């Protein structure tokens, strides 16, 4: 009997414990009910990154009429729409939970960059929601006003060959086919003859085809690749002393490929000099017995006179050393790498993508893919994180690009590429009937890829092309030029220099 009383007491004690815990739980549930909640479920969660001007939609139990405040960064967000919707967590689920749905505007004052905090206050309770990235529409060097185009200099022939020189000082160098001279267009638009044809050849060879050239950023030395009647010549010209030195003379393109520059066989298809005496050259590839323009990248060191191969592809001759830079998705498409040697960066274009390599370590930094917009939808999210933007390039970036959707791809320090977006956006692939849809998406527009921050931003809010076109592109009623235009250089103010109208004009951007 004694024990039974103890048992009874124990039972009572436990029961009271149970009841009190129920009470606590109940109380906690009430607190939970008033706490704001955000739904992160697919289809309801808000995005990870936004551009200034975007509308952010937050879904969850927010209770807009219970003193809801949303703070993004240090700024109270302006609620533009508040409504409720019926949330069904899973398809086929009969549950029908009412949820609040609030839209806020992303503004400049909220800050920019990664991990901007989102704080939600409702009913006196504050929670930290998932932080977001905010990207400004502008970036380093952006213009706040629109840019239009003006004729910068007159050129005689679309067959002129421009020498590679992206020095940020507005210098343009070209080989004039009509005279055979090496010409320099200064930033003020005047043209001077740097080397006459006699000085350029030094009487050592006769130029049949001028293949490629490059001038160092200081503008003191040029390297040229020319084809004569019998051979291929790679030569170095001193622009101050007006002398020329033949570095290599190649009759047939066979081994040896690397070693002392005078002893090897080489054909040079593109030339990128740096400011320290290194010259990066693009050499041809060979595919099923056919020579392809671009197949490998070599470095010529003018200090010791050695040519060494840095990168190769599946199209390179088998004996060619180097790190393979082939695009695994399209291994046999020859692409011209875009090189900014002073920054030690090389961009290898791919279909709707770019592969970034470090020149010194020959390591791939990253592969960036740009998604296209889905059929029937106008692409309009082209500013922001690279993982989220949708640009209808539908082509290779860089030299194989379709200039109607992307033109230029001019490398700039800070891992940036400047390009012109949507000169012409055909409505047909979008399911909208043929015609130019570019004005509907704010095009054409000067844009920048920023691979340091992994985003795109607008280089200028508008691009007024007014009568100029960057070729080649097809549009109804518009003939396609056979000459490809090039974005050549930029200057200290950020203005861009390019050929236009199928290399018939040299244009420069001006403030509108």
């Amino acid at each position: 009997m004694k024990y039974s009383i103890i048992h009874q007491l124990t039972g009572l004690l436990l029961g009271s414990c149970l009841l009190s815990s129920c009470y606590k739980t109940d109380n906690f549930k009430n607190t939970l009910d008033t706490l704001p909640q955000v739904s992160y479920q697919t289809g309801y969660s808000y995005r990870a990154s936004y551009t200034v001007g975007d509308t952010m939609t937050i879904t969850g139990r927010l209770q807009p009429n219970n003193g809801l405040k949303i703070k993004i960064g240090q700024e109270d967000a302006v609620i533009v729409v508040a409504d409720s919707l019926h949330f069904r967590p899973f398809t086929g689920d009969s549950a029908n939970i009412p949820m609040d749905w609030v839209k806020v505007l992303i503004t400049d004052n909220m800050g920019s960059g990664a991990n901007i905090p989102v704080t939600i206050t409702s009913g006196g309770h504050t929670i930290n929601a998932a932080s977001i990235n905010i990207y400004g529409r502008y970036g380093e060097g952006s213009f706040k006003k629109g840019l239009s185009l003006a004729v910068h200099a007159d050129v005689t022939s679309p067959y002129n060959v421009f020498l590679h020189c992206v020095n940020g000082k507005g210098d343009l160098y070209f080989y004039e086919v009509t005279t055979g001279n090496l010409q320099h267009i200064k930033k003020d638009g005047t043209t001077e003859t740097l080397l006459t044809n006699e000085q350029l050849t030094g009487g050592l060879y006769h130029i049949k085809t001028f293949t490629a050239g490059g001038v160092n950023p200081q503008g003191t030395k040029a390297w040229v690749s020319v084809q004569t009647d019998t051979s291929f010549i790679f030569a170095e010209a001193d622009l101050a002393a007006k002398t020329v030195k033949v570095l290599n003379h190649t009759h047939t393109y066979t081994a040896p490929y690397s070693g002392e520059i005078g002893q090897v066989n080489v054909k040079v298809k593109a030339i990128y000099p740096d400011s320290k005496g290194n010259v990066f050259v693009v050499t041809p590839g060979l595919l099923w017995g056919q020579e392809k323009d671009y197949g490998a990248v070599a470095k010529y060191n003018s200090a010791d006179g050695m040519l060494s191969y840095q990168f190769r592809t599946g199209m390179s001759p088998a004996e060619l050393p180097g790190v393979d830079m082939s695009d695994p998705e399209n291994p046999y498409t020859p692409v011209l790498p875009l090189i900014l040697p002073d920054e030690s960066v090389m961009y290898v274009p791919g279909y709707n993508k770019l592969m970034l390599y470090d020149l010194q370590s020959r390591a791939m930094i990253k592969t960036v893919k740009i998604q296209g917009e889905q059929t029937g939808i106008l692409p309009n999210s082209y500013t922001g994180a690279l993982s989220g933007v949708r640009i209808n390039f539908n082509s290779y970036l860089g030299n194989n690009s379709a200039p109607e959707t992307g033109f230029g791809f001019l490398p700039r320090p800070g891992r940036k590429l400047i390009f012109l977006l949507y000169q012409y956006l055909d409505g047909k692939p979008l399911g909208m009937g043929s015609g130019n849809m570019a004005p509907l998406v704010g095009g054409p527009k000067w844009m920048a890829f920023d691979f340091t921050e992994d985003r795109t931003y607008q280089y200028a809010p508008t691009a007024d092309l007014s009568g100029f076109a960057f070729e080649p592109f097809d549009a109804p009623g518009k003939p396609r030029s056979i000459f490809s235009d090039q974005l050549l250089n930029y200057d200290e103010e950020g203005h861009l220099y390019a050929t236009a109208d199928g290399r018939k004009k040299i244009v420069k951007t001006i403030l509108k």
Partner: protein
Amino acid sequence: MRTRFYVLVGYCMVMLISACNKEIQPVVPENGNSSKANFYSSSDVLALYNMGGIGLFVDVPVVKRSGMIPFLNLSSSPQKLEYPTVYSSVPAIVYTSFRDGAHQFRFNYMVPDTATTMEGILPNRMLIDSAVTLNRGAQALFYLADKPLTAEEQEPAFQLLRVQLNGASQTDTSMVALYILHQAPDAGPLRCRSVSRDGSLNEAKVPGILTYGQATDIILFNTKEASNGLLGLRFYDAVTGQELINTAVPANGGHGYVLAVQGFKNTHQFKVPVGINQDKTINYSTRTVTANLRTGLRQLW
């Protein structure tokens, strides 16, 4: 009667206690008796082949290629140098499963059965016959690499090298995981250094000496150590101190890589099969492998 009441209270207590116990121990599913493997040919000599392929016979006698065995096709263009692979734009390594424990891996050079095709069907020469022990639930990367050669103009020899992943297939987003494998046949022992943010060389994390065939355990780098988005690495000749390789790993936090030092330091000549006669004899030709000491980087996750 009362006893029953106490039993009831007892049950309630048990349920109550178990409900209060929020720490639910997840049941770890058994890994099964399996382990994962990936095969990859990093040989510069095999890259020169345009006939036949490499068949991998696991625990079975070497017979005609059935189509079911792991096969590296050297006659296709581009060559198929990895098994298994899937079509994916995401760079990642795919594995095939084997029962864990001891296995016999026989890598065989396969030649065509007629002079009109180049596809490898019939076993021709055993390249590697190796007893391998696979660890339970773990992943291993097998590299078919060039073997240090004894003389010029010989038929090439190969070696099976292995990188054993230590299970962890994920790192903190601030860390980059790296395994280093030395498979350069004539480079000799290497001294490794990592490049610090200030440009100075550091030997704390990387092995002092790495010999041919040797792979490191997992090395973790903080992305804060990166400069210009890259974690620099240098490899030196351990004897002469000459810098052989200047390379880097992208500082993508949360990802893992395997970096292989590969290629020949000097140019060499090899006798390479180039064709097959009607009587099934093989024609050989001397081919040159260019000096191409470099690193190959593969993303693990």
